[in-house]
């Protein structure tokens, strides 16, 4: 996704293939906030623009166009609006935006959430929305009192007349203000005057997430709704040959069995009969070319590809000559597996398709694409389609689905049975349903000169592409290279005079997708463990070795130093513990981690302490950033210690949390998050805390065992004493 941001900054405007009719709006504040007006309801009926509605009871509702998956936009975006609006934070509420061009991503040009962009991409637009609303309230007050708006000020949901001290609440002014034309370019506050932005602020969605009232996609209930479960092919790419539904239909509670594009839907009164009905289906599949897919033979296939040059992603100097002349040469092979997102809330979607309308409720990160898919599958017009973005029980990229499959399934079933339907995925469906972080096989070599300085670095990545053949191709494929496969490798920050990074596209077939930090998740592991290896080979301290190679990368250098300082790098450790460091830039932010770990005689790894430091530029909610450092660490440790999707006879072997385990409470290390005060360009925080974790852990394991981890997940048998 990083690649998309970088490319989109240059290229996204040039094409409208993805835009679904709406292009970049920048800071567009429509006078008639169409979508906001359409959803008028409850306490805040007066739209001041697309992002702000105010009610007579003084409630300020901020319409949020980024999906809430836990990463915090339902708080950070209202904070930015409230700051410029001088709103009373206790009166601020959030509401999910409908699908409309007003809510397109300010950079991507379509409505979606991804690439750790929600805060920085709205930093200007929603503050302007807040500032514009404030000016309208000032004007409305001035008009009411017959004074110039310039003589009035705002404070805590009130306009105050400077001369007389008269006051009117925002609620009292909302209706009048909503009839005014929004100013197009309202001035923004001097950041030094911020009262809310930059301060630790409790999330707005916590109360409802602690009393059972929060409604996730799976909790949606529509009158007359039935439940469907889909029998999908056991092998990716398999085709349906024939099926017999007699036994399924005989199960009490099963209503219908219908064939849709991706499988056979069993429609029932509820989850339990739907599940039994699906189990009773007799299906014959034509399993197709992936029927023999096996992770072990796939490794051989990838290793073979790694022997041949790939498409160039980066070339600088002359690597072959430099390697030939190096005093010491090092080579390594890395193998990193497919990974499942395993969101706590399995995929699901509610659809109600009628002759002249379609209404869909789901936790999605990809509103424009999903809306367009609904239009295509129903034959309705976009204005006849209503898509409700629900709270997402985890996302990590799994809900930004380029082919909109989980939405399309529900739409197709509802269309076929002419009833509202909820399609539910079981954990097993979710685990085996594909859209994984692709497997990545790396071949890397480097050379040191006589002084122990790196002179050459050659990095080959074998990895399939989930971009080729999709509408994202135009933005993400650059000079023949899928940027999501090489991000974090082709932009290695260390000063090495001769560099070569290339990509071998592995055969497709297994559905893959962006998973929290995307290509950085495997590339950072390889780069940061191999540089560590070079440091040790050069007889240098791994922190100092990196630092010496970052003279021209001040933000990298600073975050590395900050993490080392906070972690007490170089200070004595408890017996049996090792310390590892790693640093990585992604999604516009700079992260470094120091991990303390120990390894038992049996090879069992215990992570004791994680110290994370970030430079993400200006900060909106420091508490959210710390939460993302904690969450990113757990997500990445889970992958490093346990995460692996494998294939045997074309089938995914893992199915639930017993064979695709998650880090649990008793394994939770102490995680510290440190934020560097920074006025640099703002970056993201949802993903970039992930990449340095696995290499920092592997480097800590090396420090304590002398053993290098070159494949993930970490295996006890490789670390036994």
């Amino acid at each position, binding site marked *: 996704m990083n690649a998309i941001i970088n490319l989109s900054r240059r290229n996204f405007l040039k094409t409208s293939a993805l835009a679904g009719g709406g292009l970049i709006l920048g800071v567009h504040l429509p006078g008639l906030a169409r979508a906001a007006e359409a959803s008028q309801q409850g306490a805040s009926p007066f739209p001041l623009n697309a992002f702000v509605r105010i009610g007579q009871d003084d409630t300020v509702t901020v319409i949020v166009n980024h999906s*809430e*998956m*836990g*990463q*915090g936009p339902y708080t950070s975006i209202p904070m930015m609006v409230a700051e410029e609006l001088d709103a009373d934070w206790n009166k601020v509420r959030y509401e999910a935006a409908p699908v409309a061009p007003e809510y397109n991503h300010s950079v991507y040009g379509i409505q979606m959430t991804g690439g750790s962009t929600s805060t920085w991409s709205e930093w200007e637009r929603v503050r302007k929305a807040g500032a514009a609303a404030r000016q309208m309230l000032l004007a409305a007050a001035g008009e009411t009192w017959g004074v110039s708006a310039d003589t009035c000020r705002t404070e805590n949901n009130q306009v105050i007349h400077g001369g007389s001290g008269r006051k009117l609440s925002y609620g009292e002014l909302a209706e009048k203000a909503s009839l005014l034309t929004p100013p197009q370019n309202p001035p923004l506050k001097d950041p030094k005057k911020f009262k809310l932005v930059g301060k630790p602020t*409790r*999330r707005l*969605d*916590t109360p*409802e*997430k*602690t*009393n*059972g009232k*929060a*409604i*996730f996609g*799976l*909790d949606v*209930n529509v009158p007359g709704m039935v*439940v469907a479960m889909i029998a999908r092919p056991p092998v990716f790419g398999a085709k349906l040959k024939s099926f017999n539904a007699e036994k399924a239909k005989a199960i*009490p*509670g099963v209503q219908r069995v219908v064939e849709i594009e991706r499988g056979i839907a069993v429609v029932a009164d*509820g*989850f*339990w*009969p739907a599940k039994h009905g699906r189990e009773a289906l007799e299906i014959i599949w034509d399993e197709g070319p992936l029927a023999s897919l096996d992770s072990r033979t796939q490794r051989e296939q990838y290793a073979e590809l790694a022997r041949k040059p790939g498409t160039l992603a980066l070339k600088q100097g002359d690597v072959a000559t430099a390697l030939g002349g190096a005093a010491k040469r090092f080579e390594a092979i890395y193998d990193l597996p497919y990974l499942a997102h395993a*969101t*706590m*809330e*399995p995929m699901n979607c509610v659809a109600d398709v009628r002759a002249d309308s379609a209404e869909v409720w789901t936790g999605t990160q990809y509103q424009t694409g999903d809306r367009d898919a609904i239009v295509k599958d129903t034959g309705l017009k976009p204005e006849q389609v209503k898509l409700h973005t629900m*709270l*997402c*029980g*985890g*996302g990590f990229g799994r809900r930004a689905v380029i082919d909109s499959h989980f939405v399309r399934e529900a739409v197709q079933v509802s269309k076929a049975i002419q009833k509202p339907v909820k399609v*539910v995925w*079981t*954990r*097993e469906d979710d685990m085996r349903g594909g859209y994984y972080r692709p497997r990545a096989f790396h071949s890397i070599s480097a050379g040191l000169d006589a002084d122990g300085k790196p002179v050459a670095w050659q990095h080959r990545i074998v990895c399939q592409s989930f971009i080729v053949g999709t509408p994202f191709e135009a933005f993400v494929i650059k000079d023949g290279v899928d940027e999501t496969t090489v991000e974090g490798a082709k932009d290695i920050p260390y000063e090495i005079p001769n560099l070569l990074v290339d990509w071998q596209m592995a055969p497709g077939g297994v559905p893959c997708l962006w998973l929290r930090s995307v290509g950085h998740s495997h590339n950072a592991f390889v780069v940061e463990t191999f540089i560590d290896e070079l440091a040790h080979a050069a007889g240098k301290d791994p922190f100092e070795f990196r630092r010496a190679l970052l003279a021209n990368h001040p933000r990298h250098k600073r975050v590395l130093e900050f993490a080392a300082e906070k972690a007490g790098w170089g200070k004595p450790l408890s017996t049996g513990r090792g310390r590892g460091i790693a640093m990585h830039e992604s999604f516009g932010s700079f992260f470094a981690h120091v991990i303390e770990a120990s390894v038992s005689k049996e090879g069992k790894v215990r992570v004791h302490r994680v110290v994370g430091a970030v430079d993400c530029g200006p900060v909106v909610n420091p*508490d959210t950033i710390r*939460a993302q450092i*904690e*969450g*990113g*660490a*757990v*997500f990445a440790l*889970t992958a490093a210690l346990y995460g692996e999707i494998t294939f045997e006879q074309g089938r995914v072997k893992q199915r*639930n*949390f*017993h064979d695709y385990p*998650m*880090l*649990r*409470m*008793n394994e*939770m290390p*102490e*995680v510290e998050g440190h934020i560097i005060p920074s006025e640099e360009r703002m970056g993201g925080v949802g993903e970039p805390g992930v990449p340095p974790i696995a290499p920092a852990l592997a480097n800590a394991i090396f420090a304590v065992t002398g053993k290098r981890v070159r494949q993930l997940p970490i295996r006890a048998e490789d670390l036994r004493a």
Partner: protein
Amino acid sequence: MTSLTVNRKKYELDVDPTTPLLWVLREKLQLTGTKFGCGMALCGACTVHLNGEAVRSCVTPLSRAAGKEVVTIEGLSPDLARPLQQAWITEDVPQCGYCQSGQIMAAAVLLRENSNPSDTDIDECMTGNICRCGTYQRIRRAIHLAAKLKTERK
């Protein structure tokens, strides 16, 4: 017909008695605070109290709840719900929030039985509840805080 009490209310339900309690709560009684995560008692998202004990409702057939008292997140008694929810808010625990009903229901039994749980007690009680967002550190802090709040209220 299966009779049971849910959140102090009596129900007579004409539902297949093999149906997991989870789906009865969610689909028949519209108590959607209890979540589906795994269906195999592996993640704890579906934790409810059955006669006061924390159980995984995804593997508890309705028949096992017959004649018993079920409490869900929506009906957790205020002496436990208030300190827990207040602590969860103070520590800003949830991220996506999906697992948190189950976390709170598990923590409620711990607090009821143990007025001052240690980190080891928390590990033992809470290790069955997965949080994919990684809020464990905050859950731990919130349980310690809730214990304090609960004691102060007495």
